[in-house]
């Protein structure tokens, strides 16, 4: 035993030495570390939970805003549709009005033209009658032969057609 250096005093003093070291560390060091780790774990868990809640809230807020936006967009679309329908109606009305007016103008023009034609025809009749009277007068005055009659008539007719 002596050649191995075994010595009860040293052996016991080493054990005591280790126990002292153990007690000091156990009392002052390990609990502090363990406590710190525990605290940090708790803090991290809390932080994560809080972040989770915040994220969920943000998500809800986003959804709410999106819904709102969607509703507004639909509203606007409705309004635009209404406005364009209105415009279409107005256009139709305007078109119809224009068409009506155009029709009126045309009708009046036709009527006027007809009236003019009637007037002119009436005038022509009057002139023809006068000319006929005139021709008859001349025939009566000159005592007509066949050939002259024809000539007169032709003259007359050419005059008429000229008119």
């Amino acid at each position, binding site marked *: 035993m002596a050649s191995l*250096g075994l010595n009860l005093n040293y052996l016991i003093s080493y054990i005591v030495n280790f126990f002292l070291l153990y007690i000091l560390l156990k009392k002052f060091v390990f609990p502090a570390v363990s406590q710190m780790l525990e605290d940090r774990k708790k803090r991290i868990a809390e932080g994560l939970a809080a972040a989770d809640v915040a994220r969920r809230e943000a998500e809800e807020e986003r959804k709410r805003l999106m819904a709102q936006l969607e509703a507004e967009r639909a509203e606007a679309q409705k309004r635009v549709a209404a406005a364009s329908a209105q415009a279409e109606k107005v256009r139709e009305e305007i078109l119809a009005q224009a068409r009506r007016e155009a029709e009126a103008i045309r009708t009046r023009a036709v009527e006027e033209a007809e009236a003019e034609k009637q007037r002119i025809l009436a005038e022509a009749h009057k002139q023809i009658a006068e000319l006929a009277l005139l021709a008859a007068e001349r025939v009566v005055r000159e005592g007509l032969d066949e050939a002259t009659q024809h000539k007169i008539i032709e003259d007359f007719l050419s005059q008429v057609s000229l008119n």
Partner: protein
Amino acid sequence: MSKLLQPKPLALLIGGILLVVIAVLFFRVPLPTILLPGEAIPGWKIGGFQLTNTFVATLIADVVVLVLSFLAVRNMKEVPEGKLQNLFEWIYEIFEGMLTDIGGKEKAKAWVGVFLTLLFFLLIANWMELIPGIDSIGVIEPLEVAYAEKGVTVGYQIKQIGPFITLTSEQVKLSDEERAAIKEEAEKAEAAGERYHPHEPKGYVLTPYVRAATTDLNLTIGLALMVVVWSHVIGFRRLGGKYIRRFALPVITGMKPIDFFVGILEFISEFAKIISLSFRLFGNIFAGQVLLFVMAFLVSFLLSLPFFGLELFVGFMQAFVFAILTFIYFEQATHSHAGDEHH
């Protein structure tokens, strides 16, 4: 091969070889005296307690462990600022997790303190062998005295360098006649009640102030003994009477004969635990130290470098093995044998 021929590696290679050649030819160092017991440092006594260099190392290891751990927890912050706190927390968490894997949360929490104390203390104690100069600074005394007290037969010449005295690499050996003469003289001196001192020392030996604590069997056996006894205390406190049953003490009736033999084996295994724990640690570290001595003795430069790396690893491994086995023994002590523990 072509990589070696480039200028830089080539220069390193040649430089290394040159260093080795110089070391072998001109720069020999003495082989430190290799002794199994922790060496008493001459003249270092506190009361009646003779300090050995392994005991000094133990105290240093205590101080280092305490200082480092107290620095780590002195000013703890939720958001760690010091690296030491970070390191400490990291170590704590890793090993607590490891112990939880082995023995469950409750046991890990209960014994992580023992585990870490053992780990830290043994780690520092083991790694102390790696500090350069630790085995070469100490007290020089005559070879004759060393022979009379410790049986050392090989010493060295000394030489004065400035204010320091150093051993040279010139070996001195004691012949058989000299040994007999020294023995006689030492006995005479002891009978006369005075300390033996040779008139003209033939050589000298050096006793370092510090030697890695785990190279002292007293420490390793002491710790192993403590661990095993502690595990029994734990087992008894947790299981009560059932714990004794595993050792087949014939107190309990209704025991089958086979249990008796199993009990004997259990009994032997408890001693085996002490032996294996203590000698594994001691053997590894002591052998590592001798290895480093011998490598430095063969070639004083470079050669011991890879072995330093090896010993760094071995030092950690042995500390870890000792600590984890302690935990496992504690854990095993809480299992009762007959399967009557509800799972």
